């Protein structure tokens, strides 16, 4: 269990971390999510004891992080290895620095490189590899000491889809082995599928923390995704068959997204389809994506922050999740 409490870190005038607290249970994938400059890397560097927090504490299994003996694997945001040195040599070097015996480090390095489909680079110099492959080596080094806790700072940046998939499967494997994986990202769609828990950070503060599935469930289940081949315009069908059930429907990816007036109106939609003789191939509640949740949380607060600076946690703020408003809201976030 990693517990961060009330972390504060300032760099000159800038409050990079402003009272951030979160806890990470064992054996799960934990995402520290936020926009660029939200304070993700600073938080990770505090956990890694790269520098200390001005106030607040980080404990690992109840022991303050600096004196913890827990094995931590680390993929820094600042990627870098010795360009002129042989890959195996560098991996063994870091492994031994992290307390491994030389032979163990070498064995583990070969296994990891194999898993990452990078075995052929074992005896090559780093600078002979492509950027993406260098990233893989970085990841292998993070895992070299078979750590209990793995901290990955923006692991997906710079990876192509194939390598991203390899990375995901390795992270999943680590989690399945009971390891705790903490990672940061600003690419919500990339990390959605394997985040067990998340902490959304905005301007150094935690704005949302918890189990991702539960968070998704907490959003009203009032959006349907329906695929029914040959049914024609489902929007028109519902307007006549189930008036007052849906706010609107749009075609998306071969099916229809239907925004209901209330979650229980699902029955009415199903009945209307049935009455029209349409048998849906897919009929499911559409949960908000992580990206939508992110925009909802961070985007909304970014706008509220303009008026009430420093009151981003403003309690009575209404949830402004809008299925079809994602792009527009994202635009506002960026402005």
């Amino acid at each position, binding site marked *: 269990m990693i517990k961060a409490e009330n972390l504060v870190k300032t760099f000159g005038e800038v409050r990079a971390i402003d009272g951030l607290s979160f806890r990470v249970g064992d054996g799960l994938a934990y995402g520290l999510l936020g926009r660029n400059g939200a304070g993700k890397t600073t938080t990770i*560097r505090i956990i*890694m*004891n*790269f*520098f200390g927090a001005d106030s607040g504490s980080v404990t690992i299994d109840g022991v303050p992080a600096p004196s913890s003996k827990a094995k*931590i694997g*680390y993929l*820094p*945001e*600042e*990627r*870098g*290895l*010795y*360009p*002129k*040195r042989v890959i195996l*040599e560098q991996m063994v*070097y*870091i492994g*031994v*620095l*992290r307390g491994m015996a030389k032979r163990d480090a070498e064995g583990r390095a070969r296994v990891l490189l194999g898993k990452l489909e990078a075995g052929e680079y074992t005896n090559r110099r780093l600078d002979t590899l492509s950027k993406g492959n260098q990233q893989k080596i970085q990841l292998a*080094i993070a895992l070299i000491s078979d750590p209990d806790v793995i901290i990955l700072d923006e692991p997906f940046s710079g990876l192509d889809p194939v390598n991203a998939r390899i990375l995901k499967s390795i992270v999943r494997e680590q989690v399945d082995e009971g390891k705790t994986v903490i990672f940061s990202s600003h690419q919500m769609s990339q990390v959605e599928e394997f985040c067990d828990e998340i902490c959304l950070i905005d301007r150094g503060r935690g704005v949302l923390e918890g189990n991702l599935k539960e968070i998704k469930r907490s959003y009203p289940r009032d959006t349907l995704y329906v695929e029914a081949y040959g049914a024609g315009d489902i929007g028109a069908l519902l307007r006549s068959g189930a008036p007052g059930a849906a706010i609107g429907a749009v075609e998306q990816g071969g099916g229809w997204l239907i925004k209901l007036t209330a979650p229980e109106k699902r029955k009415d939609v199903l009945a209307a389809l049935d009455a029209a003789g349409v048998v849906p191939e897919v009929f499911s509640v559409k949960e908000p994506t992580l990206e939508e949740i992110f925009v909802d949380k961070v985007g909304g607060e970014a706008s509220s922050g303009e008026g009430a600076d420093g009151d981003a946690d403003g309690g009575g703020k209404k949830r402004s999740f809008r299925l079809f408003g994602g792009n527009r809201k994202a635009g506002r976030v960026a402005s």
Partner: protein
Amino acid sequence: MKKIGTVLKFEYRGYIKSKSFIITTIIFVAVILILSQIPRFMGTFDDIGSFIGGGEKQKALIELTGDARDGSFPSLLSVKHLNEATGGMYDWTIYGVAESDSGKATTTTPDPRKEIGEGKYDIVVVYGGSARYKLYGKSQDFSLLTLSSMLDPLFTSIARTVKMSGMSAEQKAKVKGVLDTTVVGKVETVGGGEAENNFWLAYVMLYVLFMTIITYGQFIVNAVVNEKSSKMMELLVTSARPIELMFGKVLGVGMAVFTQVGAIAAATGVSFALNVDTWEKQIPEFREMLSQMNISLGLFVFFMLFFLAGYFLYAFICAAVGSTASRVEDAGSVSTLPMMLAAASFLISMISMSNIDAAYVSVLSYIPFFSPWIMFARLCMASATFVEATIAVAILVVSVVFFGWLAAKVYRVGVMMYGKPMKLTAVVKAALRA
């Protein structure tokens, strides 16, 4: 401690396997091997002088005193003898005994320093017929060594002849020492103190120390900056303590230094030893010259002490200043301070060789940054005793420990800072607060 060893091994291996290291070592060794073969390529020298000195003849004066004014000596020590022994490089004048083929002769004994100081002569030799003679010359005149190595066999053979010519028992007793001991020449430079023949050795060693420190000091600065600019540091400082990283690096580069310098020194020793016969055929005095090069054990020990301590003092400072830069472009500018210090020390030691007993030289010879050069120069020039040198070494070692500690603190703060290089004073302040 274990991690220091790990870093050391990694750094050391990195250097000795690097192309530039291998190539420079090979080039140095090759140059030395070629130089040692010169006599094989060049055939015989008609005139040693043309090889060693050349150019205009120097005006040399030999003053005979004491037993050397004895009647037997003129036939053994004439201008002709001297010209033969010294390869015709000098225009000899003999003072002390009137003899047939010497133009000028007088019974007065002029002051050698005055003769040289006034520019009447370049060289003055004072010979009293005993096992010792004294050679006076202008300071920084490298030919003094050569000359003394050419005079040694001459005086030795004179002594031998004197003994064999059936002199009186009393006279034999006087020259016995000459035969039993190698002739010892003393060199005195005008405007400087008295020195053993190893002042030239001081030049070589001071230069070696200077080159080693600026070359490898810059290596260390570059290595630290590279680690920072290649973003390696974040991974490293979360795997080992900065102090372990710094010591490992400084020791690792240090071992690479000694490997390279050692390889070059060994190549020099072996190749000249193998070729000593060839050299001797061309330059009969070669063996004598070699024996002149034999430095005393004490001097060698002190050279090693000053070399090691000086290297580490500068290496720690280089590691500290290197940690304040984040970009490779800044590596040059941050290393200005240690490089200037080393250059200043080297230059002062060079200049002070001609005025080795000056008060400022004595003072500087105890100050840590300067002492490796200046105290060593004083030692070579016999201006300082081993006791004084020991005190300087002790001060140096204490400051190595102090600067090692300070550098580790600066390093710890420095390696985590990115952006424009901070002022060293600001970093030191931050380091002491941390």
